[in-house]
Each structure stands twice: as C-alpha cells, then as structure tokens.
C-alpha cells in the first residue's frame, strides 16, 4: 500500500519535472525561432505558403462555427434578457461576448485542433522519415526553413481568424435576433455601438488572439519536433498538441482577462 502511494508521488514528481523541462525547451525553441527568422521574411514565399495552410484552409471551419456560435448567443441571450425586459440589449450581449471572449478563445481552440495538429503531424513525420536530418546534413537549418515560417504564419493567421470569427458571429446573432425573432434593428446596433468600446474591447480581444496564436503555434511546433520517430509517437504528439494548446489557451485567457477587463 505504502509502495503504491510512494510510486504515485514519484510519478507525479517526475511528470511535474518533465512538464517544467518541456516548458523550458519550448522557451528555448521560441528564442531559436526568433534568431533564425530572417529567412522567413527575406524569402517571404515560404511564410506565404504556410499562411495558406494554417490560415486560409481554416477559414471554412471558422466561418461556419462563428455563424452557429453567434446564432446560439442570439437565441440564448434573447430568451434570458426578455425576462428582464431588456431584450434590446441582445446586440450588446452578442458583441461583447464574441469580441472579448468567444472570438479569441473559440478560434484558438479550433485553430489548435485544425492547424496545430497539421503542423505537429507534418513535422513529426518529417522527423520520422529523416527529412529533418537530411536538411541538417545539407547545412540548411531546419529551424530556419521549416519551423520559423510556420511560426510566423500562425502568429499572422490567428488574429485574422479571430477577427473574422467575431464579425461573422455578430452577423449570426443579428440574423437570429433581428431577422428571425424580430428585435428592433436600430436598437440592436445602437446599443451595441454605445457599449462596445474600440480600445477596451476590440483591441484587447485582438491582443488576446495574438497571444493565443503564439501559444498554439509554438506548442504545435515543439510537439512535432520532439515526437518519437514512430507512427505511435507522432499520433500521440498530435493529441498532446490539442490538449496542451487548449489548456494553455484557457489558462492564458483567465490571466489576460483579469488584467484587461477587471
């Protein structure tokens, strides 16, 4: 019995230590990426290719999800606000919820699931088939050629996707609230405009999405690079990317929200 407890504690300590080691390695990867980033901009074509794969190809899922999220917000919000006679504030509810929270956070979670796993799998497979080794032996740094362009592509794509999410979500809310349920068009927009502040709400939401983009992309790249070079290893790595990215996004969201909106 005692043995089991001791084993459990030992495993806990070991996993805590390996998590910290992983965090440190991630930070080191970030600095290496920055140092080797000159190629990503001098040969911008590399980065553009990656922006296509991470950003453009995620547009469909982002737009569709945003529309549904906006509609649900409109629906749920209306029926709750109606009880207090404030159904005309539905515009404010939808806009603030999206711009401050749902836009950056849901986009980041979807991004981690779609683009993050793609990055991890691609790099993991390149490692397994020795392509990274081959590149190294040809005196080309894999960090400069493979990692850095994907990093900057992620940093650029995320804010764009989050902003698009917010916009489409608001349109979804508008669709349900005004066109379907029948809330007054003018009240919807005027209340929203009166209560959504550009600097406090929209810009802060954009800052959040940049931070989330940084976290998700870095985690995806790191997991791909350290994946064991086997089929099982790569598949585990993609799972880890999603899990760790999601938890980081939610944790960072809490931290940022307490700075910004309190």
């Amino acid at each position: 019995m005692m043995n089991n407890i001791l084993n459990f504690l030992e495993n806990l300590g070991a996993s805590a230590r390996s998590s910290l080691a992983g965090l440190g390695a991630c930070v080191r990867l970030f600095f290496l990426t920055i140092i080797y980033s000159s190629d990503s901009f001098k040969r911008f074509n590399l980065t553009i290719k990656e922006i296509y794969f991470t950003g453009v190809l995620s547009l469909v899922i982002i737009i569709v999800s945003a529309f549904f999220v906006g509609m649900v917000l409109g629906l749920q919000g209306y029926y709750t606000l109606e009880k207090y006679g404030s159904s005309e504030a539905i515009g404010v509810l939808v806009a603030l919820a999206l711009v401050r929270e749902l836009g950056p956070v849901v986009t980041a979670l979807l991004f981690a699931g779609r683009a993050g796993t793609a990055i991890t799998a691609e790099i993991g497979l390149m490692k397994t088939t020795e392509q990274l080794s081959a590149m190294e032996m040809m005196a080309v740094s894999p960090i400069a050629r493979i990692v850095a362009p994907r990093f900057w592509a992620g940093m650029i794509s995320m804010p764009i996707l989050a902003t698009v999410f917010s916009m489409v979500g608001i349109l979804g809310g508008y669709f349900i609230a005004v066109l379907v349920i029948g809330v007054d068009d003018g009240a919807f927009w005027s209340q929203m405009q009166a209560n959504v502040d550009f600097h406090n709400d929209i810009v802060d939401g954009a800052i959040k999405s940049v931070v989330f983009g940084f976290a998700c992309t870095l985690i995806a790249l790191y997991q791909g690079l350290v994946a064991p070079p086997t089929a099982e290893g790569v598949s585990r790595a993609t799972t880890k990317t999603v899990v760790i990215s999601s938890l980081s996004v939610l944790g960072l969201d809490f931290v940022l929200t307490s700075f910004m909106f309190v």
Partner: protein
Amino acid sequence: MDENLISINNLTFGYGKELLHKDINMEFNRGKVSAIMGGSGCGKTTILKLIGGQLKPNSGSVTVDGKVVHEQDREGLQCIRRKMGMLFQHGALFTDLSVYENVAFPMREHTDLPENVIKDLVLLKLNAVGLRGAHKKMPAELSGGMARRVALARAISLDPDIIMYDEPFAGLDPISMAVICDLIRSLNDALGATSIIVTHDVAETFSFADYIYFLADGSVAAEGSPKQLLASKLPFVKQFIHSEKDGPVPFHTEAPSYQSDLSL
C-alpha cells in the same frame, strides 16, 4: 596534402551510460571507397552522424580535412557539411517537393546560380543516376529504388568531397542493388570523392570497396581490403563473411538455463 580526408581518433561515444564506441580509430583515405560493416545496432550509422557533426563524441575526436568537427562553431560546421553529401536509408526526400525541386534544393540554398544553370545541373545529376525522365514526379510516386537514386542525385548536387551512404542496399531488389553498386563506384571515381558506406551487405560491398572496417562490441574487430579480409582467420570475420548462424556472435541471447525457465 593529408592522405586522410577523415580520421577518427580515440573516439568514445555512448547515448547515456552504455558506451557504443570505445576508443575507436579509423582513417578514410582520399578518393577511396570505404565501408563500415557490423551487426545491427553496433553503432555504424552513429559513426556517420559523428562525422557529420550531428552528434558530439564523449571523448576523442573526428577530424575532417584537418578540422575537428565537434569544435567547430555554426559557420565552421556549415562549411564542413557543404563538402558532404549523405544518402539516408530510405532516401529522406522532401515529400512536398518534386524530384526536380529535391535535387535543386542544395543548389538553391547554397548558391546564387540563375535558374537556367540550375536546370542544367539538376538534369545532369539526374542523368547520372538514370532518372532524368522522372524529374516532374513527386516522391510519393517513386518506388524505393528510384527514391534512393533521386536522393543520391541530391547528395551529389554540389559535387561533394565526401559522400556517405547509410545502408544503401537495404530492401532493394537485385537489379536496383546492382545499379546502386555501380553508381557508388562510378560517382566516387568521377567526382574524385571519398565515399563511406555503412552496410551489412557482404557480397555487394566486397565487390567494389577499397577498404573495410568491421565493428563489434564497440571497437574495430577487423579492418583491411576485401582480399585481406577474405583470407582472414579471425572467427568474427569468418562468421560474418560466410553468413554463419552461430560463432563469436552467439545465436542465443543471454538467458538463465533452459531447465530453470521451464521449471523442471
């Protein structure tokens, strides 16, 4: 000019506590084709990685053209690597680039040659390995043997002084094997390069290699030209060359007595 382009001196290396190589000495002469042979897992591929600077030795040194590899900074290492071409076991072609792009890759990265010159060079290299007609294909469309030949064309892209082959014959059909054999020898002579092959294929290697090292138990068990080794009386060499099932390399791994395992 030093006769040895690459020399390995008193090399000791291990991943972790177990040592893979114990105090090894090897020399690779200019213009010659040398082979490193041995059983699976004896550290042959690791030697290539140590020469290329991907791994650092625990003690001892690897010297390439007078420069100690693990003491080089990033610039120096790039310099050394530019003189090397390496053929990986399964080709390691970049899957998102076409055959043409793969062979052009080193040229695009390290030279400022205009596109038409690169085109000529790429087709030249592909012609040398007999795959000029496949230059538009993607790696996924190639067979194993063809992929390896394209990887070879890529490895000689910048006319390297050193060409390293990691198990070039593994998993090939007899025809492809013969092709690769021929290419290794002819390219080495045409480019005036020094080739190092890591393999356990006895028949093929003995037919064209100039010098062979045998690795076993972390040290050089035997070395010499193919003729010398064929005449060798060393039991390990004999077992290896004549493909004997049991000998110095035992058939049974260490285990308690059979009786005790069967609980008799």
